[in-house]
Each structure stands twice: as structure tokens, then as C-alpha cells.
């Protein structure tokens, strides 16, 4: 293996490994724009230039590899390459590249959504010139509407071509192109072929500057106000790793600050979703915006629903469960392992049956291209945790139809249900008002996945943790808390300090989860206290 020296550190570099990656390995970050680990290397932006002893010109770190040199050509008698990432030559080169990029850049940071997480801003502060030597007129091309969800702020583009490569190499849809040449180059779509595919949102994350802007998020928030929470997408059984960016904002007519999820971004996990998520997952929460959340517990009084206190609703629920007849607790493929586990435990304690409802099924879609090493598949099972729910409830399949005909049904989540016939008594632990919740006798308002923590088990059996990012509206509570309270109302002594305690118990009780290393789950991201917003 070639031995190299980067700045003052000596290290071995694998055959084919680039200087960029080797430097990263030892904690040296080289600035870059066009490089992306998931895309073909084009080495065109020239931001990553480094100096290599013996090379006549600075070389791009992102594309340069090192070979074993014959003895005579080794530097200092032993190194196959000696690289500086900080010498005068490198700094001059960086400064020059930034100067070139900024020549034609509008520098409209104050109104740019990328400001605060923009690589052009960051590198300019760190490496750039503070005064421009450019006294000519800038070229300011118009903003373009690329398709249903994305704008191109043409003038901000730095031509890194990441977005073009994404539609060529990852989705294979090839909507994005470069038109014109040289200084006049612009990203564009062909007439009649808008940027419209199920992964297009990723180009916004990919763009190192604020050129590609998501219409859903434009002008809605400033990134330095965001709080980032690690999460898992509930869109399908793939279980893409995500980050929820949340922000407090003042609701109209309300004094209080409400926090909302402003944006969902992919979180790198090479074994699941690599660097991407699909738009179904990305915009999943958008769909909730015009739906009515259940804010308060309700019980049916004389045929119509009335809002009551938690105490009253729990007592009413307990009474109905104890009333006799067949009782079934139905878990949900949309609820976490912990919630399903607790539901099962409670059912057992009160002698009721358990079941799990069926997930919605939809289209499976795979993006396959010649160049993509990791074809991205959106799974047909449109629920995050069917596998986990079955595991922790000890079921091999759903027996939904039969269960719903029981005398009394305690149901976890119901958005996905098409209830033909109402059971005589229906206790719904639910988040949204819908046809089912309207039929219920008792409604216990529950948090959705952004408002609580837990684990999902994806289709491959990977147990992944998601964290609480925002507070629930009104009096809605996390499902596990509702179940603990319900257990108490039923005379059961359930007590858990946090979701983590349930996870721990679950992994001890459920044999297939014995291998799950809870401490590893915890170590990956610190577990968020239910009562404090992450």
C-alpha cells in the first residue's frame, strides 16, 4: 500500500482511494463542491486542489489517487506522495476558485434559503477574498420553474453539475441538462419535460448553493433557527434514515410559539437509503397540513362526540373494556415497536386478544441505472413497521377482518383502515379526525411519529430509532403514555420512565429482539427525553 503524508500526518492509502477520502479519514476536510460520494467524479469545480510534491500543478484531491512509486521516485526516501492541503499554493488556488465563482454570483444571501448552510458562504468566509476585483456587470439570468416542486435560481448556480449527474446516474430520468456553453452555461430542462420524478427533492439537498430551491420550503424559515432531530421515514417499509428540521414559529392569533417540522432531509445510511429519500417520504408531512388533528379526548354521548378530560375518557374506555364480551387490541404497522409491544402487554394483562391491522399497499418503484451501485427502491408496503408490529405482538399475519367484528376493539391508529362495519364498541387511539374516528365511542388523541420516540423495524429486520422532534398539539399524548394511563385505569401497574425503558424491556421479552443491542441504539443518537424537545 502506498505510504503518503498529508500535511504532517503519515498514512497508508488504499489502491484507488482518492486523496480527498484519505484526508477525510484522518480528519482533514478539503473544501469541495462537485464531489459527492454517490455520484461520478468529474473534478470540475477545482475547489479541492491540493499541492503534491513533484506535481507541476496543483491536483484535484477528489480524483487523484496514489500509486506505489519506484524507490528512486519516493519523496524523502519513503513516501509515494507528499501532499499539502494548506500551503501557499493551495490557499491561492482556493482563493482564486472562490473569486471566479463569485464573479457572477448575485450574493443575495439575505433572501436565499440556503444561507447558513451554503458551501459558498462557508468557504468564502474561510478562504475567500473579501473585496471583489470584478468591476464589470454580472450576468443575472432569470429564475426558472423546473417542475412541480423545484425552482432554479439560475444566477446562483456554480455549475457543479451534481444535480445533472443525479438525474442521470441515480434516477435515470435525465431531466436536468446544461444548456449553452462557458460563461453562459445554465442548468435547464427541455420544454415539455419538467423535473418530475419521485426522488427529485434530493437535488435541493445536493445543491451546494441556493440554486435549487424547494417550493414547499421557500421563504419559510432560516436554517440557523432549525433544530435537527434524527428520525426514520414512516413512508414505507424501507425505513429511510432522515433528519427532521424543526423551528419554532408563532401561529397567527396565538401568543405561544409552536414548533413545526419545516423540512425532512435524508440522513446517510449506506445500508438503507445511502444519501437519498424519495419524495413520498420527504413530503409526507405536507399531506397532514390540511387534515384535522385530534386535540382532546372525546367520548360518545347520546350519539354525538363530546370533548372530555383525559381522566373521563380513560375511565370510559376502561369501563367498556371491562364490560365483557370479546375484546381485541389491534396494533398498527404505523406505530412503533414500543407502542405495539405495550399494547400487546396490556391486552394480555386484561385477557383480551391481539391483532395487527394491515398496512396500505401501493406501487413499488425501483430507480435503476447503469451507473448506480445502489438502486433505490420505494417499497410497496406503505408502512414503516409491519414487520416489527408482528414481531412484538407475536403474530405472523393480520387477521383484521375477524378482529374488527369483536364486541370491543381497542385500535391503535386507523388512518389506513377502511372500516366496513363498526364493532359495537370502538376505542380509537388516533391522531387525525377521519371516518373511523367519527365512528368511535372513545377517542384518545395520540402523537404522531414526529412527536414521540421509538423504534421501527424495516422490511429487512433492521431496528431503527426515531426521535421526538416537536410537541403534540392540544392534549394529545404519546401512545405509550396513553397506554400506561389506560393500564392504570384498568387497574394494571405499568410504569416506564421513558420510551427507552420500554425498548429495554421489549428486547428482553421478545425473543427475536434479544439480539438488538439497546445500548447501540442509544449510542447512535442520544435518546431524547420525552419531555424536552430535541
Amino acid at each position, binding site marked *: 500500500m502506498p505510504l503518503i503524508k498529508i500535511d504532517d500526518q503519515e498514512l497508508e492509502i488504499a489502491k484507488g482511494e482518492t486523496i480527498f477520502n484519505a484526508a477525510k479519514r484522518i480528519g482533514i476536510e478539503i473544501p469541495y463542491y462537485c464531489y459527492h460520494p454517490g455520484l461520478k467524479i468529474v473534478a470540475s469545480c477545482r475547489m479541492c486542489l491540493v499541492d503534491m510534491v513533484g506535481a507541476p500543478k496543483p491536483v484535484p484531491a477528489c480524483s487523484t489517487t496514489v500509486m506505489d512509486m519506484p524507490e528512486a521516485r519516493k519523496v524523502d526516501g519513503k513516501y509515494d506522495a507528499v501532499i499539502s492541503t494548506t500551503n501557499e499554493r493551495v490557499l491561492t*488556488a482556493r482563493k482564486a476558485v472562490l473569486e471566479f465563482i463569485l464573479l457572477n454570483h448575485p450574493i443575495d444571501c439575505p433572501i436565499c434559503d440556503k444561507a447558513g448552510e451554503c458551501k459558498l458562504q462557508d468557504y468564502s468566509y474561510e478562504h475567500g477574498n473579501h473585496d471583489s476585483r470584478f468591476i464589470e456587470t454580472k450576468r443575472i439570468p432569470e429564475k426558472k420553474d423546473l417542475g412541480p416542486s423545484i425552482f432554479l435560481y439560475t444566477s446562483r448556480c456554480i*455549475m457543479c453539475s451534481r444535480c445533472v449527474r443525479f438525474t442521470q446516474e441515480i434516477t435515470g430520468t435525465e431531466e436536468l*441538462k*446544461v444548456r449553452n456553453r462557458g*460563461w453562459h452555461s445554465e442548468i435547464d430542462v427541455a420544454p415539455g419535460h419538467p423535473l418530475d420524478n419521485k426522488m427529485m427533492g434530493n437535488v435541493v439537498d445536493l445543491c451546494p448553493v441556493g440554486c435549487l430551491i424547494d417550493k414547499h420550503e421557500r421563504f419559510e424559515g432560516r436554517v440557523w433557527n432549525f433544530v435537527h432531530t434524527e428520525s426514520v421515514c414512516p413512508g414505507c417499509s424501507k425505513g429511510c434514515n432522515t433528519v427532521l428540521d424543526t423551528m419554532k414559529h408563532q401561529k397567527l392569533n396565538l401568543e405561544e410559539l409552536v414548533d413545526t417540522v419545516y423540512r425532512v432531509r435524508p440522513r446517510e445510511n449506506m445500508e438503507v437509503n445511502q444519501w437519498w429519500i424519495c419524495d413520498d417520504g420527504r413530503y409526507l408531512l405536507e399531506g397532514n397540513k390540511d387534515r384535522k388533528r385530534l386535540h382532546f379526548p372525546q367520548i360518545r354521548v347520546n350519539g354525538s362526540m363530546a370533548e372530555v378530560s383525559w381522566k373521563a375518557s380513560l375511565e370510559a374506555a376502561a369501563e367498556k373494556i371491562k364490560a365483557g364480551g370479546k375484546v381485541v387490541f389491534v396494533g398498527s404497522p404505523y406505530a412503533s415497536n414500543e407502542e405495539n409491544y405495550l399494547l400487546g402487554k396490556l391486552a394480555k394483562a386484561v385477557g383480551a386478544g391481539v391483532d395487527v391491522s394491515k398496512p396500505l399497499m401501493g406501487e413499488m418503484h425501483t430507480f435503476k441505472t447503469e451507473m448506480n451501485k445502489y438502486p433505490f427502491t420505494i417499497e410497496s408496503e406503505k408502512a414503516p413497521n409491519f414487520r416489527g408490529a408482528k414481531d412484538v405482538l407475536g403474530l405472523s399475519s393480520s387477521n383484521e377482518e375477524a378482529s374488527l367484528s369483536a364486541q370491543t376493539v381497542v385500535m391503535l391508529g386507523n388512518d389506513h383502515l377502511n372500516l366496513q362495519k363498526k364493532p359495537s364498541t370502538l376505542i380509537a387511539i388516533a391522531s387525525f379526525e377521519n371516518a373511523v374516528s367519527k365512528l368511535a365511542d372513545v377517542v384518545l388523541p395520540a402523537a404522531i411519529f414526529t412527536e414521540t420516540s421509538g423504534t421501527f423495524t424495516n422490511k429487512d429486520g433492521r431496528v431503527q430509532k426515531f426521535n421526538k422532534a416537536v410537541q403534540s398539539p392540544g392534549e394529545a399524548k404519546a401512545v405509550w403514555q396513553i397506554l400506561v394511563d389506560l393500564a392504570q385505569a384498568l387497574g394494571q401497574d405499568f410504569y416506564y420512565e421513558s420510551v427507552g425503558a420500554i425498548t429495554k424491556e421489549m428486547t428482553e421479552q421478545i425473543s427475536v429482539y434479544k439480539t438488538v443491542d439497546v445500548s447501540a441504539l442509544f449510542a447512535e443518537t442520544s435518546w431524547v427525553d420525552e419531555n424536552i424537545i430535541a
Partner: protein
Amino acid sequence: MEKVLTKMVGIENSRNIDVYLKSGGYQALPKALKMTPDQLVGMMKDAGVRGRGGAGFPTGMKWSFLPKDNPNPRYLLCNADESEPGTCKDRVLMEEDPHQVIEGLAISSFAIQAHTCYIYIRGEYVNGAQVLNKAIQEAYDKGYLGKNILGSGFDLDITVHRGAGAYICGEETGLIESLEGKRGWPRIKPPFPAVYGVFGSPTIVNNVETLVTPVHIINRGIQWWKDNEPKLYCMSGHLNRPGVFEAKIGINLKDLIYGDDYSQGIAKGRKLKAVIPGGSSVPVLKADECDVAMDFDALAKAGSALGSAGCMVMDETTCMVNALWNLIKFYAHESCGQCTPCREGGHWMEMVLGRIETGRGRMEDLDLMLETANNIAGRTICPLGDALAWPIAGMPDKNKGGDLSGNSFVTKFRDEFEYHITNKKCKVTIPHEWN
């Protein structure tokens, strides 16, 4: 001197295969087919042929870079994109003597064992493409192309592919991308085309003039070649007799300009001011630097390059600011736009020069240009970035740690630039007829 490369020029029906055959054509091909490919590659090495496309890379060495163990088919690409300003030699070969080109391609293809050869011809050469296509058809009909050429068992197809008017598609990897039907964005090297070229296969890209050389080396021998190496020079500018001239490589630039067989001196009896000897991308020579041999090494020593041998001669009435502005406009216009320094820097320099030329220059612009040229050269994917920087600031200089020497327009004619900035007009009086 006996004409070799341009022997057919001026002969009636020179494009016709029978005329070519009558004057000794297609005699090298059968000899080549009796040699082994390795012998042919060795022959090119021994003769010391250097590429005529611009970089002057040793051709035999390039051919020997082809991997022996790659199972993919090999390709020969004949670079006929000829777009470097001042260059027009390949056009003469293709339009006046297409069979010489075809014979050269057949021999070269055999030497590198390629069964498919593309001629990538610049889009504007409509006539050239037609002439070539007609000649190719004649060659197929007579068995010099196609299956089992002259009973040797060697097959070869040649296809003419027309470009769409982009200089960058003359750069070998830009050409490859374009040939594959993509945008002409040069690739990063390595991998070099010899290893990973067109359609991912081993590929050799050579200039038209380079690819006709084996015809003459086979016909006349390696020693003859070494003693008489013929070269085409494209003489343009303020000359009495501009045109493409064949001469022995290394002919003195002064002879080319003043010689009776060549350009016969500066037009209108004016004085020589400067010469760009190798196509617009190479540093300019002042009149007193023109006593120089027109070959690769001598010109490199003189701080310029033979490049594509596109020799542009400027007389005393030329405004050097305007001349440089014109050149830089070309490179800025032709930048493919991939690399930051070339895309942005080129246009910036064009704007700065435009400002100086139109009387809005500042003294600091001169150093700005020299510095910026240094920030472009050597920091891009393909040599277009260099081509843009060298006319401004000269070739890389070892004594300056690889920075550009500074020896070109801005330094050599600094007085004119300064005059322009101070007086807001040209130092030279531009005669009526150039305006």
C-alpha cells in the same frame, strides 16, 4: 523542395482514386499489411513522429499505451475538428487529397488493430465531409476498405462524423464524448483514451496530419523521414501570400514569412511586428524573436510552441490589445463551461480586455490579467484553460515554480497596453483598410 504531403494539390481531379493511384497512391498500404502491427508501432517510434494536433506527443509511444489484455474492440479516431484559430492544414489534406488521408487511416488502424475508424470532422467543413465520403466509397469499391482488405484478412470501416461547431470537441476526450452523442465536456484524465476511450474501449485519437505520416515513412523509409520530415505550416495574417505551405520541419520562421516559396513577406511593404507561431493558444513572438526554427523543441525554447503550426503574422499596424482581446473572446466563447477557472476566468479576461480596448482600462488590470492567467493555467480539466492563459501570460516556467513566465502579449507589449489605458486609444495608427 519536393512536395510530399501536398503532392496532389493542384493536380487535376486530385480527389479521384484513379488519379491518386496513378501518382503512386495506395502503395504503402499493402506493404503495411505485410508488416506486423508491432513493427508499425515501432516504425513510428523510430521515426520519432510527434503529433500534429497541438501537443506534439510522440505518436508511436501513444499507440503503445494500448492495453494488450483488454477484450474490447479498439477504435481509431481521426481528429479533423481543426478549429484552432490560424489552423487550416488538415482541410487541405482532406479536401485536396482525401485518399492520402484514407490510406494513412488504414495503415494506422492496422497498426493499432482497430477495425472501426471515425473521422470527426468540424461541422463547418461541409465540403471536406462530402469529399471524404465520396473518396471512402471509392476506396471501398476498390477493396482498400471494408472486409479482408487486399486479401490480408484485415477489416476496416471508416465513418465520417460531422461536429456541430464547437472548438472543444477537438480536444480528444471532448471529441469522444461528442462522438458518443453527449455534450462535449472533456473527461478527466487518467484514464487516458488509450485505456478507456470511446464507448469505454481502448481508443487512439490523432490529428489528420499525424495519421498520414506512416504512408510516407513506409514509402520512403525511416531514415528519409528523419532527414526530410515534412510539415505543413498555415501562414495567415498580413502577408503577401498567405496559405498552407509544406516545408521541412524546423524551417526558419523568417523563411516562412519572407521566402519566395512561402509567404513572400509582409503585405503592403509594412514592418513585421509579431507572430503567433502555433495556433492562437501559444505565446506570441516579437519581430526580433522570429529568427527561430519552426519545430517543437526550438519554439519551446523560445518560450512558445509549435502547436498546430497555425502561424499568424501581424504587421506594425496591429493593435496588440485588440488582437489579444480577439483571441480571448474566442477561448471564452468556446469554453465548455465545466471547470470554474476556465468558465469564469475566460469571460472575465474578455471583459477586462474589452474595457482596456474601449478606453476604460485601469493600470491594475494588467497585473490582474497576469495573476488571473496563472489562476487558470494548469488548474483545469483540459488544456483549453491553458490555451486561454498562455497568450496572456506565456508558458509555465520551471524557474518560477511552474507559474507562467509572463512572456506573451501583456508583458511583451506592455507599452501598448499602458498607452491604451492612459490615452484611451490605440498606440498604433490603424490604417483605413483594416477598420
